[in-house]
């Protein structure tokens, strides 16, 4: 083998372990890949240091090379984390390197999991590092709906108990100002406002959702409700709806808020009603919400059916079959 590692005196004492895909035996590998030569070499050395369970500077550097070629490699990250702790490396430096890698591979999951593993070291990070949230905002500038970054941010909130930190809601406001359709930001907002915070609840979802004894109607309902906060959130959703009435996010956010507060959908009947006048419609989501309110009221079943028919025939043809399904449910109930 003639490559970067084979010619490096630092690696002279290591015998690389080539990929053994069984080609010497009577087996036929599936999904074989035409690997670039650098990858073939770097992974051969990786197998050698892993087999020796080597915790060294050179192994650390090697993991960077493998990560650059295959950031989704699932053991190289765990190996890297173990070396970092074994050699007592500076985790600040590791974060600086990770920032660069994260900006290069936007869609990678392992990078963010690695970050979480490091950040969960209370010894190294007793509080959230000052630049951490700035970096996340830099990531959101590239892709404001990046699932991995949002997952990590969710974890950060729970780990450092940031629900009421002003920075959280400020960042969410800024992201929603930039794009009122950012459903990830809406979802994070809901978590900040309504998620359970108890230590011993292993991050249960909608309040008491995983508890089998909860009736469906009580799922997500908070035991103690800050009515002022609920009103403010409902108003926030209304302002967002007026900007983009076809945006599903704030409509469903509001439903979630009403649920958490134990208030019925009927509270929004008047607001939604302003978007519908006969056949003239300003928001399909308003029509759907009104239809639901009417359907709950047994006497108004026909009005609900009329509204859903409007969606089916005039405003939302893609969901024709779905609206038919809903209409049938109401007709059965009536």
């Amino acid at each position, binding site marked *: 083998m003639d490559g970067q590692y084979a010619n490096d005196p630092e690696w002279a004492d290591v015998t690389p372990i080539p990929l053994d895909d069984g080609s010497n*035996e009577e087996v036929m590998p*599936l999904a074989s890949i035409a690997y670039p030569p650098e990858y073939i070499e770097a992974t051969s050395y990786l197998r050698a240091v892993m087999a020796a369970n080597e915790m060294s500077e050179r192994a650390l550097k090697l993991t960077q090379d493998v990560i650059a070629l295959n950031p989704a*490699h699932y053991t190289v990250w765990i190996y890297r984390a173990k070396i970092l702790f074994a050699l007592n490396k500076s985790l600040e430096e590791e974060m600086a390197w990770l920032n660069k890698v994260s900006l290069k591979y936007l869609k990678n999951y392992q990078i963010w999991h690695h970050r979480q593993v490091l950040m969960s070291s209370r010894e190294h990070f007793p509080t959230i590092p000052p630049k951490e949230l700035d970096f996340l905002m830099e990531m959101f500038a590239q892709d404001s709906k990046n699932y991995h970054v949002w997952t990590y941010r969710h974890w950060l909130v729970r780990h450092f108990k940031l629900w009421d930190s002003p920075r959280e809601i400020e960042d969410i406001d800024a992201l929603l100002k930039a794009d009122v359709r950012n459903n990830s930001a809406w979802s994070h907002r809901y978590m900040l406002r309504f998620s359970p915070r108890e230590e011993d609840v292993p991050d*249960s979802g909608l309040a008491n959702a995983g508890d089998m004894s909860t009736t*469906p109607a009580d799922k997500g309902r908070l035991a103690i409700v800050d009515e002022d906060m609920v009103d403010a959130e409902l108003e926030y959703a209304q302002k967002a709806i007026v900007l983009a009435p076809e945006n599903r996010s704030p409509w469903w956010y509001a439903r979630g808020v009403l649920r958490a507060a134990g208030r019925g959908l009927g509270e929004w009947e008047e607001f939604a009603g302003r978007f519908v006048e006969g056949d003239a419609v300003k928001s399909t989501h308003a029509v759907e919400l009104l239809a639901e309110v009417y359907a709950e009221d047994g006497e108004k079943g026909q009005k609900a059916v009329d509204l859903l028919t409007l969606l089916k025939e005039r405003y939302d043809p893609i969901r024709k079959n779905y609206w038919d399904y809903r209409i049938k*449910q109401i007709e059965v109930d009536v």
Partner: protein
Amino acid sequence: MAELSFNTERHVKYYLRCLKTFLPGAYTSNDSNRMLLAFFIISGLDILGALENKTTAEERQVYIDWLYRCQVPTGGFRGFSGTDFGEERRNADNEAWDPANVPATFFALVNLLILGDDLSAVKRRERLQWLPKLQRVDGSFGELLGPGERIEGDRDLRYCCCAAGIRYLLRGKHGKDVEDVKDIDVPKLVSFIEACQAYDGGMAESPFREPHTDTASFQLLSPGSEEFETLVAWLASRQTGEIDSDDEEEEDEEEDEDSGAEGPSLQEDGGSIEQKILSLPNLTPLTPDSIPCAGFNGRCNKVADTCYSFWNGATLMILDRYSVVDDVRNRRYLLEKVQHLVGGFGKAAGDPPDLLHSFFGMVSLAFQGEASLGCVDPALVTTERVTRHLAALPWHEQAPSAEAWKEVHL
């Protein structure tokens, strides 16, 4: 409009190329997912009806032999041969660097079944002993056991799904011959899954995260319940005429305030909400021709992506509510927008084909009864031939189906 067709011959060629020649170097970043890529290739060929007539029994046997090479000595499968440094070197200090992987183990088992193997060389007991070690106190599953048997990997419904799949394949309905092996904590798992349902009815990867379709495929709800109906509503609203964010020409009649640098913004300004609503324009009614095709997105307010035609569709199949889908527009989206000339499907309009999107695009069509494709079981995502083969294994007495799957997991 010319008759749209699924070009079976081209698709078979595409999969055979993936089976018999090297995948391009661009797949290097998917090296660790080779077991999954292998699943796409052989299950894909099987759904096309080509596995048994385009490969010989001898070839299928040497593929089976390779799959068993990926079984680690302690049981379970690695995701790719790349972590294998040789059994003779394996010891207690280094075995964590070549671990069995939960998704890879699930897909390896399914791959063996597709190729006709009877799983008799699978370390069944060891695998079932391993599974509970991967379950966390909150009920969720990790991806693998790292050094010191620490559970590694995110709290992610997809691992839960694969873990439940392994349990289903290896334990069978009554755990025949493995009755004494400690089972996973099923009620805990169910409660974790329930907690993943978000305020808008969708399922997130873990509680309180944004709902995402990859994870909705797991089903435990009863029809008529609020949870069930909001999940159906959420899945149905994933279907979208928004095909490509870069292509402003695409139909977008109902959203004239589409995102852009100058989009609407939540700034404080004067005027009451009531006045603002009054000044909003009415929506323009649509005719059936306004939106010719519609794929699916995986999250609210995202554009269509081929694989979500599968994820949403499979979940609706398991819920027995596929009929709420606009199958005509979905088919048109798949065949007209993302099917590629050389065979396979791309992720979005104009994209080159890749294995993941090729497979999921095709399975979505199979759910809708595309003439040249076999029936696909939505839970295992294999042909019915494979589910029958599984049912004939000694520890599976009754035919598995979406119903049995649900039953076992309740």
